[in-house]
């Protein structure tokens, strides 16, 4: 069996999905699942004008690569690729893409979902949102069990 493609990348500029998807096509793969996160025009009901992603690049790339390689071990897939943007993003821009090729749809969906969940939980990338009212803040979601004590370094 051919080695499973497993790749994670940061992208400082907009990137096209079509050629990345193309690379996951495989004559042995019957299923492909993908996920994309786009910049929404609102968050928690608050109008958003744009955002910035900051990464600790060295660690983000290493941790992201660990995630896709772990996915290649856990699921019966033929390839997995994830790209996450950094820098300034406008509304509607692509923030993150995950593509997975597999023999069957169960593995394709499960691996795709697992990768995006792990990326959101583990990869050191932070979102800075700019709101319509001129306010801006870093998003540092704290797990629900300890949420009551979550501080905000950047807001009163």
């Amino acid at each position, binding site marked *: 069996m051919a080695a499973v493609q497993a790749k994670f990348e940061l992208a400082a500029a907009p990137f096209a999905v079509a050629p990345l998807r193309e690379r996951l096509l495989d004559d042995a793969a019957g299923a492909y699942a993908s996920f994309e996160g786009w910049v929404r025009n609102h968050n928690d009901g608050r109008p958003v004008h744009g955002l910035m992603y900051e990464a600790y690049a060295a660690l983000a790339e290493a941790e992201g690569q660990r995630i896709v390689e772990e996915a290649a071990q856990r699921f019966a897939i033929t390839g997995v690729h994830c790209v996450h943007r950094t820098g300034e993003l406008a509304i509607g821009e692509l923030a993150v893409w995950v593509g997975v090729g597999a023999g069957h749809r169960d593995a394709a969906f499960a691996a795709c979902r697992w990768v995006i969940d792990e990326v*959101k939980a583990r990869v050191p990338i932070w979102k800075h949102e700019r709101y319509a009212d001129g306010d801006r803040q870093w998003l540092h979601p704290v797990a629900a069990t300890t949420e009551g004590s979550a501080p905000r370094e950047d807001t009163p």
Partner: protein
Amino acid sequence: MARLRLLYFASLREATGIDGEAVDSAAPDLAGLYEEVAARHGLRWPREHLRVAVDGAFARWSDAPREGSEVAFIPPVSGG
């Protein structure tokens, strides 16, 4: 005493006003190092909400600071 390079990201960078600094620390472990840094910069994050990384890999709070290493305190992430 270990000579270390500290990195700050996101709200920690804003709270400290710097993206990194060189420090000498006698802290026995990374938890102690964070207490020193938090006190000096007035950081309000309890350590339980942070992770710590050394030279680009996640580390344990109980690890001893390694001479010449690069240490980052990682606030909750929000990529994706």
